[in-house]
């Protein structure tokens, strides 16, 4: 079970609790969030509960609620690839969405990603991060490229890879801006 709290860049990532599930489901099923996902299907209450019970016991993934000023605004996660535990994975796939409409068009979308990328590269053993994005999702492509990702394979679904040096180089200024306080 994930008890890990991450804080920095003005946001807090706290482990998902059962009381968060309905809010997360509503966000996940909303049109703007669903459009970004590889699967466009809506999630039922039963599916959401089954998913939560599975991921709580899975050492290969962590899921968090993103909070800004103590208010939930979205969700972030990391998943081990080619390994059964996150702390043994050299490749990790991060993901996130901003559910709160007030923060969708906002630079804060970078803050949770900086936090989890730092965690993956500096605390876990990740040597690279992988993002899988629909080629038609130009906003997500641009977002990942700003973080230093390089396109690895370019089809209908693109694979992008981020190494630590590329990440550090691409985000130095952004990190300064989001950690001034």
């Amino acid at each position, binding site marked *: 079970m994930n008890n890990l709290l991450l804080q920095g*860049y*003005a946001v807090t990532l706290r482990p998902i609790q059962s009381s968060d599930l309905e809010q997360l489901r509503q966000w996940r099923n909303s049109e703007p969030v669903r459009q970004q996902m590889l699967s466009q299907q809506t999630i039922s209450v039963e599916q959401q509960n089954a998913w939560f019970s599975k991921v709580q016991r899975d050492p290969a993934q962590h899921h968090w609620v993103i909070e*800004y*000023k103590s208010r939930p605004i979205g969700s972030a996660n990391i998943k081990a690839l080619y390994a059964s535990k996150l702390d043994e994975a050299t490749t990790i796939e991060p993901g996130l969405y901003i559910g709160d409409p007030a923060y969708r*068009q*906002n*630079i*804060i979308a*970078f*803050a949770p990603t900086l936090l989890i990328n730092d965690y993956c590269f500096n605390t876990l053993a990740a040597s690279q991060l992988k993002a899988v994005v629909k080629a038609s999702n130009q*906003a997500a492509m*641009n977002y990942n490229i*700003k973080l230093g990702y390089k396109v690895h394979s370019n089809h209908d679904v693109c694979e992008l890879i981020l190494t630590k040096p590329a990440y550090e180089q691409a985000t130095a*200024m*952004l990190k300064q*801006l*989001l*950690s*001034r*306080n």
Partner: protein
Amino acid sequence: MTNQEKLVKAFSEGLGIEPGMVKDELTYNTIPQWDSTAHMMLIGALEREFDVMLDTDEIIDMSSVAKAKSILTQHQISF
């Protein structure tokens, strides 16, 4: 130069857009020019133009021209 003119100059230079595009309703990520890189340039331009230091919450809140005015007003800059 009036504060409104300074604001238009900072947005125009920071985002690399025509001054005429700087309207209150202009919002982050709604035009290709206003992305995260340009947002950093914009913050620098506003800080230089108005001689202020913005904190992280203000940088996050500055998601439109109207919001920028509201935040700068809290730094005793009137429009």
